[in-house]
C-alpha cells in the first residue's frame, strides 16, 4: 500500500499540471484579455505534439541529458511531498535540504542545457535565470526554515506542518506574503519571466530546444509551477482537513486551483520587469523572509 501513496503523488502532478496551465491560459484570455483563448486541454496537445517531432540536438551529451535532469529532479521532489496531509513511505528519508537541493538541480538542468547549446540568447537567458535562482531560492529556504525553527527539526513533514500549524502569527503572515510575491518568480511568469523574455531573447535558455527534448522541459516547467502552488497550499493552509485521504487531496487541489487563478491574474496584469528592477524586488523579499524567521525565533 505504501507505494500507492507515492504513485498518487506522481500521477496527480503528471496528469493535472497541464490542465492547470490550461486554466491559467483560459482565465488570462477570457477574464482579462477579452479573447476566447485555447481549449482547456491545449497544454496536453502541445506536449503530445512536441513529443511526436524529430529530436534535434546541439550535438553534445550535456544538451541531451539536461531536460532529463530537470524533469527527474522535479519528480524527485514531488515524491516527497506529503499530499493529503499524509507523509508517504519515502518522506522520512529526506529532509528540507534534500528538497532544496533537488529543486536547485532542476534549475541547474536548465542552465546546463542553455550553456551547452552555446547560443548567445541562451547565455543571456541563463545568466538571468541564475540571478533569479540565487535571489528567490532564499525565500523558499526561509519558508522551510521558519517551520524548522519552530519545531527544531529539519524533517520535511515536521517543518512543513509546523509553519502554520500553530496558527497565523505575524511571522507566518509575513512569510506568506513574501512567498506569494515570489510565486511569479518561482514559476517564471510576468512580471518575472525575465529569463525567457520572448521578445528580447526568444525564450532564452530554451531557444535551441525543440521536439521531445523541449517537451520534457515544458513538462518540467508545468510540474514546477504546480509544485510551488501545491507547496503554498500544504504549508500555509493546513487547517482545512477532514482526515480522509482522498477528500483532503481534493480539497488541496481546489486550493491549488485558486493559487493558479492568482498566478493568472498577476501574470496578465503586469509587464515584464528588467532584471535590474527585479533584483531590487527580490532583495526586499529576502529581507522580508528573514524578518519572518527572526520573528518566529522569538515565537511571534
Amino acid at each position, binding site marked *: 500500500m505504501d507505494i500507492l501513496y507515492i504513485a498518487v503523488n506522481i500521477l496527480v502532478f503528471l496528469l493535472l499540471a497541464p490542465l492547470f496551465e490550461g486554466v491559467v491560459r483560459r482565465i488570462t484570455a477570457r477574464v482579462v484579455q477579452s479573447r476566447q483563448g485555447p481549449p482547456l486541454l491545449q497544454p496536453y496537445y502541445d506536449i503530445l505534439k512536441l513529443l511526436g517531432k524529430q529530436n534535434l540536438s546541439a550535438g553534445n551529451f550535456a544538451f541531451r541529458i539536461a531536460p532529463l535532469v530537470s524533469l527527474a529532479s522535479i519528480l524527485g521532489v514531488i515524491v516527497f511531498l506529503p499530499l493529503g496531509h499524509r507523509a508517504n513511505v519515502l518522506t522520512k528519508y529526506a529532509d528540507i535540504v534534500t528538497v532544496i537541493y533537488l529543486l536547485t538541480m532542476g534549475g541547474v538542468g536548465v542552465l546546463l542545457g542553455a550553456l551547452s547549446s552555446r547560443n548567445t540568447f541562451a547565455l543571456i537567458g541563463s545568466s538571468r535565470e541564475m540571478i533569479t535562482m540565487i535571489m528567490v531560492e532564499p525565500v523558499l529556504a526561509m519558508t522551510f526554515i521558519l517551520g524548522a525553527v519552530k519545531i527544531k527539526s529539519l524533517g520535511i513533514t515536521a517543518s512543513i506542518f509546523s509553519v502554520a500549524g500553530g496558527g497565523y502569527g505575524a511571522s507566518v503572515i509575513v512569510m506568506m506574503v513574501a512567498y506569494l510575491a515570489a510565486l511569479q518568480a518561482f514559476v517564471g511568469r*510576468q512580471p518575472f519571466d525575465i529569463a525567457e523574455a*520572448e521578445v528580447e531573447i526568444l525564450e532564452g535558455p530554451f531557444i535551441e530546444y525543440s521536439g521531445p527534448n523541449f517537451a520534457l522541459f515544458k513538462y518540467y516547467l508545468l510540474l514546477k509551477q504546480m509544485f510551488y502552488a501545491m507547496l503554498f497550499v500544504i504549508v500555509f493552509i493546513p487547517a482545512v482537513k477532514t482526515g480522509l485521504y482522498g477528500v483532503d487531496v481534493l480539497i488541496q487541489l481546489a486550493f491549488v486551483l485558486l493559487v493558479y487563478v492568482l498566478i493568472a491574474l498577476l501574470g496578465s496584469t503586469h509587464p515584464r520587469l528588467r532584471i535590474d528592477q527585479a533584483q531590487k524586488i527580490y532583495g526586499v523579499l529576502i529581507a522580508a523572509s528573514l524578518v519572518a524567521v527572526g520573528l518566529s525565533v522569538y515565537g511571534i
Partner: protein
Amino acid sequence: MLTIEDVKKQLKDKYQSDIRNFEHPYGTRLFVDVDRSRIRDISNDIIRMGGRYLVSVGYDNIARDKTLGLVHTFSLDAEDMFICLRTSAPVDNPEFDSITPDIPNAGWSEREYIDLLGMKFTGHPKPKRLILADDWPEGLYPLRKEVPWNMMPPAAENVAYQLDDAPEGCTTIPIGPFHPTLHEPEHFAVYVDGETIKGCDYRGFMVHRGLEKLCQTQLTYNEVPFIAERICGICGSVHATSYSQALELAAGITISRRAEYIRTIMLEIERIHSHLLWLGVAGHLIGFDTVFMQAWRVRERIMWFGEKLTGNRKTYGMIVAGGVRRDISPELADELLAVLKTIEKELVTIHKAIAGDGSIHRRTKGVGCITTEETKLWSLVGPVARARGVDIDTRRDHPYAAYDDMTFDVPVVDSCDVWGTVVVRILETFEAIKIIRQAVEKMPAGPIMTEFSEEIEPLRHSISAVEAPRGEVVHYLITGEENRPERWRVRAPTYPNLQGVPAMLLNNQFADFPIIVGSIDPCFSCTDRVMKVDVRSGTAVRVSGSDLEKISRAKKFAGR
C-alpha cells in the same frame, strides 16, 4: 518670420554667382539651383535659418546633359516653406561634398545614391553599402536609366556584409534578420557589455521591391497611387495622398474641397488604427499582452468600418490623383461617428489604466532618452520628436487637404523618453477623433474627382509632405515625358527615425532594446523601396513573372 524673398536675398547676397537660379512655382516651395562646390555651406545656412533636413533626391540626367542630379530638401516649419537645393555633377566625375558630417540624417540618403547612382560623397563618415544586396555586382547602378527595371544579375556565394567592429570588451548580439521584436526582416548587431548596450550597427533594406524604379519605368501617373499605398501595410493612405498632392501641384490642378475633406477623414482613420496598433505592439514588447489584446480589440471597430467604407480593412485604395474614389454617404458618416464614440470611451479607460500603472512607467520612463537638441540634430520626426519637445507637425506647419479648416492640438511632451511617445500617441488618437468629427460636420458638397486631361509639362519638380502616424512622409516628384514620373522619391518617417535609434539605445539595458526600437513604430519595409533583388541561390531555378502567374492560377483553380 522669413519670407521666400528674404531667403532668396540672404542666399544671393552671400553666395552671389554660386546661386544659379531661383524657382518658386507653387507659393511655398522654393527651388534653388546651386553650384555643387558650395552645397555643404548653403545646406548649413538653411539649417541656421531654422531649416530641418528632410531627404535628398538623386536622379539620372545622363541622357540630357551627362550629369547626375542631386537635391537636398529642407523644411522651414515656422514659415510653412520647403527649400530644395538642386545641384548636379558630370557623370564621369560624380563627386559631391557630403553634408552628413553636419547633418547626420543625410547619411542614408547619400549612401543610397552611392549604391544606386554611383555618386561619390567626399567626407562621408560611413560610406558603406546600404541598399544593395551583398552580392550585387560593383559598378552596376540600378537607378540609372541604362539598367532595365527587371534586371537580375547572377547571385554570388560567400559575400556578406561586414558589420562594424564591436567596441572593446563587448559581445555582439544578433537581432534579426528574423526576430520577434522586428516583425520584418532587418538585422541589428547590438554590442553589449554585460546587459548594457554600447553601440549597434544596422543592415536593412532586405525587402526591396523596387517600387520607385518600377513606377518610373512601367506605370503611369494614375497607377502610381495604388503602388504608393502598398509601400506601407499600416499607413498606406499617407503615401497615396503625398504622391497625389505632389502630382497635383506639378500639374497645377486644384481638387474639389469635398475630396480634400474625405482625404482628411481617411488619413485620420488611419492614424487612429495605427496608433492603437502601436499601443498593442508596445504592450507586447514590454511583456504586457493584456494591453496588446485590449488595444487591438478597440481597434477592430475602426477596421470593420474601414472595410465597410472602402471594401478593405487596410490598403483602402481611396486616394487617387485628382481626388478620391468613393464618397462618404450620410449614413456611413453617422456610423463613423458612432464608432468613434465607442472608441473614444474605451480609449479613455485604457488611457487611465496605462497612466496609473506604475509598472508600465518603470519600463518606459527614462528609457531611450535623447535630448531635444539631439533630436533636432538627427532631424527626427513624428511622435518620436514630439515626445522629445520638438514641436513639429506637418498638418499644422504645412497644411494640406482640409487641415487648414480643422482646429486641433499638437501634443508635445518633454520627457524625452519612450513614455513620452506613449503619451503623445494616445493624445493624438483623441485629436484624430476630434478632427474626424469636425470634418464630418463641415464637409461641403461637391464632386469627389477632378479630371485632368491636359498633358503635364515634363521635368517640373514638386515636393509634398503628409503627417503619417509615424511622422512626416515626404514625396519628391519630377514629372516625365511618357505620362509617368521621371523621378519619384519617397521618404517614409522610419527612414530618419531609424537613423536616430543608435543614439537612443546607447547605455540602455538590452532588455529595453525591443521597446526602444518599438517606440519609433518602425516600418522597415517602408524604408526599403528602391531595388528589385533576387535572393535565390545560384543553382535555383528562376521563376519568371508569367510562370508565377501560371502557378498561382493553377493553385486558385485546383481547389474547385
